[in-house]
């Protein structure tokens, strides 16, 4: 592997630059995230991103792609995903047509020989393109390797795929190459930046983890979350922003089945802006709570404490009760 910087990727010179670039693309990263992207590029290693749903794991890949102006190639994993859907598939129809054409032209290939041995020799001498790149239908993984400018490859929710598939990924993750039995090994033109995301529904294998940098994204603290909301919901009032972030942070401290994540905070902020809210009120919160909480039991549990939470949120936002 070469440690030299490819000339087109100069924005990755320092961690601060990563930070700035990501925020220009609308992604407010903390230092760990920026460090991870920086190292992923320089060490040429994939990043395994773990964390609860909705903290921006997938968004990170999108932002990296849009900031570096690289194509984003996304592969959603699911149970039963196999190499013909992830790596390549033969174009069966065209192959079939090719055999038909070959059948018609076979006499011209073989020529006038009447002897079986010589006709076989001639057939062997004839270049066989049945299994060749022309008949190859590239799927996401192969496409990411063949991208001439490099790419951001997002392997989403790897924990949803089978264990066999995980093993199959190892070659591409460590060497950025894949082996197609009929053709040979295909290496990357420019090593892509690879991000794998996982919600930890199952434990990933050690072999996979060993090959990756491991980034854990948790829920952001109050300051960071406020920054994220401000960047995603531009028109929001500063006082409202403080109130709603404080409210959500308190909500996370409760004992809930599924605590609201960043994406839900953003949704809620959008709803509040749409309703022209400037101060949180108990009724308003109660009416819009279903944006934040997705389980009936959670809404019920939180419902009892809304008054207290809202009061505290208002105090934090600097609004007189």
């Amino acid at each position, binding site marked *: 592997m070469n440690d030299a910087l490819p000339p087109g990727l100069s924005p990755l010179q320092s961690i601060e630059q990563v930070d700035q670039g990501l925020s220009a693309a609308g992604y407010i990263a903390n230092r760990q995230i920026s460090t991870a992207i920086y*190292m992923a590029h320089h*060490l040429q290693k994939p990043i*395994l991103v773990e964390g609860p749903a909705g903290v921006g794991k997938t968004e990170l890949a999108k932002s990296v792609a849009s900031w570096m102006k690289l194509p984003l190639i996304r592969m959603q994993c699911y149970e039963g995903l196999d190499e013909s859907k992830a790596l390549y598939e033969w174009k*069966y129809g065209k192959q079939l047509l090719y055999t038909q054409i070959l059948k018609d032209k076979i006499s011209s290939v073989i020529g006038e020989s009447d002897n079986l041995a010589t006709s076989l020799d001639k057939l062997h001498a004839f270049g066989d393109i049945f299994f060749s790149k022309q008949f190859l239908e590239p799927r996401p993984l192969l496409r990411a390797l063949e991208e001439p400018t490099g790419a951001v490859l997002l392997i989403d929710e790897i924990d949803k795929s089978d264990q066999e598939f995980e093993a199959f990924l190892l070659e591409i993750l460590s060497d950025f190459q894949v082996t197609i039995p009929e053709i040979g090994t295909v290496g990357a033109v420019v090593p892509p930046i690879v991000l794998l995301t996982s919600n930890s529904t199952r*434990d990933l294998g050690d072999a996979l983890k060993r090959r990756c940098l491991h980034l*854990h994204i948790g829920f952001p603290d109050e300051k960071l979350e406020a920054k994220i909301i401000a960047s995603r919901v531009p028109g929001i009032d500063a006082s409202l922003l403080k109130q709603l972030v404080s409210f959500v942070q308190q909500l996370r401290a409760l004992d809930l089945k599924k605590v609201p994540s960043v994406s839900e905070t953003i949704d809620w902020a959008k709803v509040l802006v749409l309703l022209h809210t400037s101060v949180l009120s108990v009724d308003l919160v109660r009416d819009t709570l279903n944006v934040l909480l997705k389980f009936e039991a959670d809404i019920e549990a939180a419902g009892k404490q809304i008054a207290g939470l809202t009061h505290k949120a208002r105090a934090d936002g600097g609004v007189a009760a």
Partner: protein
Amino acid sequence: MRVSAAEGIDAARAVKMIGYADRDILKDSLGLILAKTPEEKAAYEEAFELYFKRDDLGAQDEAESDEQKRPWQQQQGQQGGEGMGGSGGQSLGQLLEQDDRAALATAMEQAARESGIENIRFFTQKNLYARRILDRMGLRQVERDMEALRQSGTPEGLGRAQFLEGRVDQLRDSVRDFVERNLILFAKGETEKFREELLKSARLSNLERRDLDRMRVLVRQMAKKLAARYAKTRRRRLRGQLDIRRTMRRNMGWGGIPFITVWKQKRIEKPRVMVLCDVSGSVAPMSQFLLMFLYALNEALSDIRSFAFAGSLIEVSEILEKEPVEQAITKIMETIGFGSSNFGNSFADFEDGWMQYVTPKTTIIILGDARGNRTDPRTEIVSRMSQRSKRIIWLNPEYKSAWGTGDSDMYRYAPFCNLVTVCNTLRHLERAITDILEDAV
């Protein structure tokens, strides 16, 4: 925490790239490479802090006013000639007098490395290593000098000796702290592993309350491992035999040319497991762990029904599924636990309520000591259970020599069970369950 050689190389490359200048970034970068789960991240951060912490030697002394220090420094200028020939360029005495903390810290670390601090394993070794480090730093020489100064009898010499003594005490404290940190750093993993090994083979009924947390982790790991191993065998395919009929049908569209081959697959049965767990007073210390294991297994396997019994029997699958482990166990024990056991009655309850769900694919596991307090054992029900089910496995926490003594009906039940075995450590439990899962394949 396991770190492979490859990860070590990566870490070295990262450090080379990042440099030591920014401590936070260094910490983040190494964390990305070395720690691969949230638990490991926490452990890593702890270790990083311990390893890279170099507290200012005698920092508590910071408040000391300059005037107090100055006289000695001035004197040091005059008396500098009588330096105590230490090992390094500067002697320990000089370092102490000048209060050069960075140099002292470096000297301490070097001495620690030379004395092989990374081999420290037990807290009893703390003083030994502290002494070794101090010796290597040249403490003996300083002590001798101090003695000489005291002997000289001049007020100046006495003052100086006193001053040095204060410094030496501080140094001792620092070294002791340093050794302690290293003990935590190097020995923690070892002692914990040792303890875990011990727990695995200890009799479950002898375990103490303080080990509960650790046991819970162990039980969980074990159940998870079993579930993973079992999931793998379930998906095993029989490659190599072509299913001609299905291949033909699949490739009809291409005029029967077999582009896509279909292979014969062996369908592997899911084990259907029913567990009957004794929670009566006689096995109470044991049933805590049995329930814990049941809970973990419940999380790992989908098709498992659990029952608890003492005087009578109830289904507890739902409690195990819905409540967190602590509450689930407490709830079960409250509902039905601690009474005196009546096996006959409990089996009758089972027959009334759940016998209809027992199929020829079901494995029934009974955890209990078979001591029914001289009540009717109702072996005929167990016989019917055995006829309906695939097999019955009885796990008994008592040693074999106790079976059949007193009110134990073990040998009366045994003929209807496919397997009767002693099970009173975590290791036994693991082996028994592994066998069950493997046979189910």
